[in-house]
């Protein structure tokens, strides 16, 4: 897991003055994701765990034959190489349309700003996620806009020792919308249906679901941290059919990002949305109202619930319902515990 030393090895030779960079210039593991995840198309990454000579020529910056400069020089060079690969289409996507290079190079760095600096997210229990096997991550859903799903995937990627990707499942409504649907697909999302869920789990992926769906994110602020109905428990039967352990997750903080005070039904129907939110800032301040409030976030992963012994009960409604209820109870209790730890929603 050691970072490649090609970067640092050259550094002092040319620019000793710049050798003492603040540590955040090199975040512990910034854009070098889990190449060992087992589900990567190829090690087609600009900087991997392999020395530069071993990488295929196309991956190196085109000007790499010149003696290397300082950190900025390398940054410019790797950005240019990234742009060239993007513009010439020389990258891989998987059958779901997941584009790891774009996710690591563009999506995660942007989301990380929100995750670290804006929401000051704290994560506990990451050890409950399997190191390379499949897992079904089930979390509460809240906050009008599904920011919690994005933050959860950053949490999994950044905190997990192997930097695994969380493959989110989204309602079909998400895939009806242009632009949004493609962003979701490129970041690893899939349609919340049995074939997709089971396909991902059989491939050994970590799959993220929010069984409350739109009922969860579209609830009023007065109902914050009250879990909504878990639907038919389809996520449980998908886990049972593939024998995938279920990891319950409680997310605290998303409720306060866009506190929903009201819902304009007329506009919702007009725009074909499940709801049209009214928050303290939206729609009053226009686009400024889209800035989420800087609440303090806590994410806790609970112990996995094994399902391998229940594979034959995937169609038994009683078993499915009981298990869904157990997951729901676990998340609800964890939410209460986390809330007690965080009395002030906007604490530092």
């Amino acid at each position: 897991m050691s970072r490649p030393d090609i970067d640092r090895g050259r550094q002092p030779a040319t620019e000793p003055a710049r050798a003492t960079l603040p540590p955040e210039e090199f975040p512990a593991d910034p854009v070098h994701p889990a190449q060992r995840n087992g589900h990567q198309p190829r090690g087609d990454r600009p900087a991997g765990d392999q020395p530069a000579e071993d990488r295929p020529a196309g991956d190196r910056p085109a000007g790499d034959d010149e003696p290397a400069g300082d950190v900025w020089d390398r940054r410019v060079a790797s950005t240019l190489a990234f742009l060239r690969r993007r513009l010439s289409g020389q990258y891989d996507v998987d059958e779901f349309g997941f584009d790891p290079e774009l996710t690591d190079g563009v999506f995660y760095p942007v989301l990380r700003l929100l995750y670290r600096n804006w929401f000051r997210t704290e994560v506990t229990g990451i050890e409950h996620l399997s190191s390379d096997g499949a897992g079904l991550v089930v979390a509460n859903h809240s906050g009008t806009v599904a920011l919690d799903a994005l933050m959860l995937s950053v949490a999994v990627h950044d905190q997990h020792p192997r930097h695994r990707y969380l493959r989110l499942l989204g309602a079909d409504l998400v895939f009806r919308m242009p632009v949004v649907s493609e962003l979701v697909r490129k970041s690893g999302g899939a349609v919340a249906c049995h074939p997709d869920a089971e396909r991902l789990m059989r491939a050994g992926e970590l799959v993220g679901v929010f069984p409350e769906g739109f009922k969860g994110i579209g609830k009023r602020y007065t109902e914050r941290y009250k879990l909504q109905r878990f639907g038919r428990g389809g996520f449980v039967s998908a886990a049972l059919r593939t024998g995938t352990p279920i990891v319950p997750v409680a997310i605290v903080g998303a409720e306060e990002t866009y506190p929903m005070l009201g819902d304009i039904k007329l506009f919702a129907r007009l725009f074909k949305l499940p709801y049209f939110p009214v928050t303290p800032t939206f729609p009053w301040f226009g686009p400024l109202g889209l800035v989420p409030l800087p609440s303090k976030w806590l994410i806790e992963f609970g112990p996995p619930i094994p399902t391998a012994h229940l594979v034959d009960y995937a169609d038994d409604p009683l078993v499915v319902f009981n298990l869904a209820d157990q997951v729901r109870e676990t998340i609800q209790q964890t939410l209460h515990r986390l809330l007690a730890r965080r009395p002030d929603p906007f604490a530092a």
Partner: protein
Amino acid sequence: MTGDRPATGTVVVTGVSRYLAAQVAARLAADPSIGRVVGLDPVEPAPGLATVLRDVEHVRASAATALTVIADLDADVVVHLAISTAPDQQHSRAAMKEQNVIGTMQLLASCQRAPRLRKLVVRSSTAAYGASFRDPTVFTEETEPREVPRGGFARDILDIEGYARGFRRRRPDVIATVLRLAPLIGSTADTTLTRYFAQPIVPTVLGRDPRLQFIHLDDALAVLHRSVAEDHPGTYNVAGAGVLTLSQAIRRAGRVAVPVLEPGLSGAAGVARALGFDRYGLDQLDLFVHGRVVDTTRLVSEYGFAPRTTAAAFDDFIRAHPEGTVLNGERLALAERGILARIRQARAAVREHA
């Protein structure tokens, strides 16, 4: 199968006036284990295909003889490829449907009355899965379309597969293979889709970047050949493994994508016309909004044959169409080197001053 007689007696290939069927017929004729290859088509093959078809007997089937022709020819195997994917200059949409649907119905009725027949191979398409935003990401052979497709070709395909299912029920003794082909591509393929990618400026649908899969023409021929030479009853997805998104394919081809507004805003017909598919229409448009990816596990395990990947098939197509390239890897690498050198120069200059 005794002594020196070929393993397969007579193979009838329909639609030999078209490129794919003519190639299949030629390939089968070159196979020594196949006795006789008869091309069946109501029209004469295009002059360009005459050399390809020199070892293939040609029979012009009219509507009057259609119902008995398979029995009259004493066919062992029928390969049904007389399915057109798009209306063209000679065929309107009505004629295309006539050929696809009525043609298949008559042919299968004729097959049903052929006592010697032991194998039927039908060309279908991955369009059988339709296209909708509710679709699962990857289609297996068992996936049912969520809604009736809007496109004419896709609806024809559903009808054709319906007839094939009916035939299977009535003649369980005949080995029936249905091949759902992904869009064909390759250095020699000439389809609506290859013409689309050959344009220097390629229109796409705004806010959509569908996942596409292709099958290389040579691999499609190989699978069709094996379906005749070997026994593979059932329905199979035939596509190259892996996925290219439309934007990625356009970039690899060195073309420039121009996004056009979504159908809901400007009217499906307008978009189809802008994309240059006014005769192809909604089939292609749905593909370019929703994309289509199929699972080929069954093909690979049953046939023991893995077609080249979608990316490799597309590369082969690009190599055959170098003209019209706006951006390519070398030019980009050159630009990259140039910009990097400039920046280094500028920074060195700044450092000297400091």
